[in-house]
């Protein structure tokens, strides 16, 4: 069984064999909650496909996406950092499949297996770089640039060019109202970088999109590749 998840794939076969008997495979529909805010985290997830969104809550069910994890990472990071819960909400943004491991077992494995622990801690560093660049982008970039960045990050974590996303989700991702998303999609479409139809965005010109996204895209991705291995 070969893994699609980049962290599981980066582990040497002996370490994979330690985890394999504990991994449970699940289909994860869009909207599935992987981690609820302020509740003990029961399972750690390694997505094989699909995308999950890490959302900082602002009350009244409002929030903004602060992180993105797909086949590049793991969900349930607090358990790796000796914490049992998080104020964030983590849910599936794009339907996919993934493996999960019981949280208590995960902690035991980490205590016993330095190789696994070290790789996963390097992912924490890569992920935290991603979130710092999200902060940079939110403060310094236009909605169009942030949308371009987000589409690239999403594109990195899947095989094909079609990203199934509604405007409502994108508005949450970017922390703007829907008409701002409509206008931003329209601009990127006008430049020929993407094609947007109802609930689906197709990436047409990836290199141009990268250039357009500017400083928001590239540094976290390079950091990931330095610390873990190939991202795309």
């Amino acid at each position, binding site marked *: 069984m070969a893994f699609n998840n980049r962290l599981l794939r980066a582990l040497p076969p002996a370490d994979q064999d330690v985890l394999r008997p504990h991994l449970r495979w699940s289909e994860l529909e869009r909207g599935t909650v992987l981690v609820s805010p302020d509740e003990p985290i029961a399972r750690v997830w390694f997505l094989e496909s699909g995308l999950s969104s890490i959302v900082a809550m602002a009350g009244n069910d409002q929030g903004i996406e602060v992180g993105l994890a797909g086949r590049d990472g793991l969900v349930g990071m607090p358990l790796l950092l000796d914490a049992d819960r998080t104020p964030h909400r983590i849910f599936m943004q794009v339907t996919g499949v993934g493996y999960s491991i019981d949280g208590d077992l995960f902690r035991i494995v980490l205590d016993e297996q330095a190789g696994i622990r070290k790789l996963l801690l390097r992912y924490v560093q890569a992920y935290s770089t991603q979130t710092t660049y999200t902060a940079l982008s939110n403060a310094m970039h*236009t*909605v169009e640039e942030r949308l371009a960045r987000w589409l690239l990050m999403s594109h990195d974590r899947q095989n094909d060019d079609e990203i199934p996303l*509604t*405007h*409502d989700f994108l508005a949450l991702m970017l922390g*703007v*109202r*829907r*008409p*701002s998303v*409509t*206008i931003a999609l*329209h601009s990127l479409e006008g430049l020929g970088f993407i094609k947007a*139809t*109802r*609930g689906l965005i197709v990436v047409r010109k990836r290199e141009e999109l990268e250039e357009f996204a500017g400083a928001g895209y590239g540094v976290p991705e390079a950091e990931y590749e330095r610390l873990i291995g190939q991202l795309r």
Partner: protein
Amino acid sequence: MPRFFLHIDNGTQRIEDEEGSELPNVEAAREEALGSARQLWAAAILKQQDIGSRRL
């Protein structure tokens, strides 16, 4: 909840809101439209764009 569609018209072109938003009533839809217009203006000002011909 009813679904409201916020189409954008810039005088020469109409950008359809294909998905719409669920909002409790017309008053909430009006608030959403006003908030959206303010956000679009704020972005336009930063880019030194005049979007006065746009209608939401």
